[in-house]
């Protein structure tokens, strides 16, 4: 009897807990721990990140904020957002840079019970001058620029640099010569991009070199433009090229003209020029979008020799099938240096190639290490029976 009483006393608490659970009472909900609030790193200010450790039983967290006045007085807490049960941080982007705020995180369980953390802070947001997340990218950019700069320096010293052959650019001389022999014009299409597109800048550089050749050969050149800013630049480039070639008298002010801003209307107008005037050579160099094939196919149907180039990867297959030569991506940026054959520009081109080689080696090494790690973690472990 005495032993039965002792056993009964020992079982009483667990029996009580089981009874409470059976009755559907919620277990104790702890407030979120390790709550911290601080400036969100690597941004322009205006953001404070609140972090916390999740607690068992919580299905949602409510983040509350209270402003701190300059005299230290704290305002009332107000909800600024919610986070799901799996989240451990919240970025408050509705703060004024430099102002102080206090935060607290409230855990909420399925039954609606709440447990608030102690307030943390005050925290202030500050703008950063440098985005530390991009340190690796910045270093890679600097390394590449140093490589290019080093080759430019070598070229300045008068070293002869070997440059790989680019078929599309080798053909430029032949293409302009063909137009001269046939007594027809060269049509230069600088793309449908804006002047702020780097491909358009590259196109302007190439235009200068091609216009020099047409000036030397006395071949008419036609440059239709879609963007008014590109039009003004291309006009100056062609005019300058004719002056540079010693033929300012041969420059025709009507050779460079503005057509229309709408890209498809521009394509229709250029197609009309191709069909009516039948230029012997078409250059399609710059930023092109959906209209690339409309231009290239019509050009091909007129029998013109076509040299194209763009940095818009989706348009490259269209150019490859419809044009005689295509400058792919970086070849567009190499073109002006290749055509000018000036030592300094060739130095930059050589640096560009060497930089690419460097990145290719790094990529190959990365792939090999990744493969080895993959084999180690995957194939090797499974083979070993893990």
């Amino acid at each position, binding site marked *: 009897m005495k032993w039965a009483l002792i056993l009964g006393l020992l079982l009483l608490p667990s029996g009580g807990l089981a009874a409470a659970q059976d009755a559907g009472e919620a277990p104790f909900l702890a407030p979120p721990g390790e709550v911290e609030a601080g400036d969100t790193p*690597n941004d*322009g200010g205006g953001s404070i990140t609140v972090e916390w450790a999740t607690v068992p039983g919580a299905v949602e967290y409510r983040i509350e904020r209270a402003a701190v006045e300059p005299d230290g007085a704290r305002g009332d807490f107000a909800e600024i957002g919610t986070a799901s049960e799996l989240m451990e941080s919240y970025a408050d982007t509705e703060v004024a840079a430099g102002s102080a705020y206090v935060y607290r995180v409230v855990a909420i369980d399925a039954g609606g019970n709440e447990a608030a953390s102690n307030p943390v802070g005050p925290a202030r947001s500050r*703008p*950063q*001058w*440098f*985005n530390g997340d*991009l340190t690796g*990218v*910045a270093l890679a950019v600097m390394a*590449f620029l140093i490589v*290019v*700069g080093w080759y*430019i320096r070598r070229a300045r010293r008068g070293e002869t640099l070997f440059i790989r052959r680019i078929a599309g650019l080798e053909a430029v001389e032949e293409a302009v010569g063909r137009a001269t022999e046939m007594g027809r014009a060269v049509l230069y299409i600088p793309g449908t991009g804006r002047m702020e597109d*780097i491909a358009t*800048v590259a196109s*302007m*550089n190439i*235009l*200068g070199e091609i216009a020099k050749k047409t000036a030397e050969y006395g071949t008419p050149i036609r440059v239709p*433009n879609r963007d*008014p*800013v590109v039009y*003004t*630049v291309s006009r*100056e*480039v062609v*005019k*300058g*090229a004719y*002056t*540079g070639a010693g033929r300012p008298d041969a420059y025709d002010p*009507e050779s460079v*003209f*503005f*057509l*229309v801003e709408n890209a*498809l*209307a521009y394509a229709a107008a250029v197609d009309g020029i191709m069909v009516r005037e039948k230029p012997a050579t078409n250059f399609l160099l710059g930023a092109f979008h959906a209209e690339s*094939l*409309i231009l*290239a*196919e*019509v050009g091909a149907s007129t029998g013109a020799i076509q040299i194209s180039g763009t*940095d818009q*990867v989706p348009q490259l297959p269209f150019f490859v*099938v419809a044009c005689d030569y295509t400058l*792919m*991506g*970086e*070849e*567009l*940026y190499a073109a002006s240096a290749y055509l000018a054959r000036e030592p300094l*520009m060739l130095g*930059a081109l050589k*640096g*560009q190639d060497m*930089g*690419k080689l460097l*990145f290719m080696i790094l990529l190959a090494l990365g792939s090999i290490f990744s493969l080895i790690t993959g084999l180690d973690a995957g194939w090797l472990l499974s083979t070993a029976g893990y």
Partner: protein
Amino acid sequence: MKDKLPLILMIVAGFFGLTDRFLPHPVAEGFNQYLRDTLLRIISAFALILGLGNLILRHVNKIQHKGDGWRHSYTLLISFFAASVIGLFGGVSGELWFPTRIGNFQFDITTIYFQMLIPLGATMFSMLAFYMASAAYRSFRARSWLAVLLLGAAFVVMLGQVPLGHQIWSGIPEVSQWIMEVPNTAAKRGIELGITLGILATFLKILTGIERSWMGGGK
């Protein structure tokens, strides 16, 4: 000075353009935004006047000298001036004093845009389908082993996109997906890497004054 001023302006603008992603500070971002949104718009507005002036003069000259297709120039000039008058004095949706409706016939700028410009653009765009077919026909002719490879890959990818491919063999959509995700993505990334390095090299060439063709007049 004629050469140096544009170069200095370019170096300042180029530096902020390059460092845009690296400097999140509001001062740097604000300056960048000012360059892009304000200054560039002012330049564009003036350039547009130059461009339109060039367009009008060219077609007026064409009519005067009876150049090739000079009659079409009338179409352009009449359309240009009619649209300008309707837009300037009739407002975007005919809310200004110029009448943009005769009975049920409406001709305000919004109507012109949606009822004329958009369908005309769609007509041009729809021609792409035919151009794609003719380009595909030329490129898929199996004249070399590379062309055969291209033809084979294209055939599998196309079959993988339609239910028939799955009916022939259930693995075709997977092979098609693999072609798109592995060799295609690898080639695309290679080209994109080259483009990025090309952009940086071009930036350096312009920044150091080696490349000056864009200023006109060469060296």
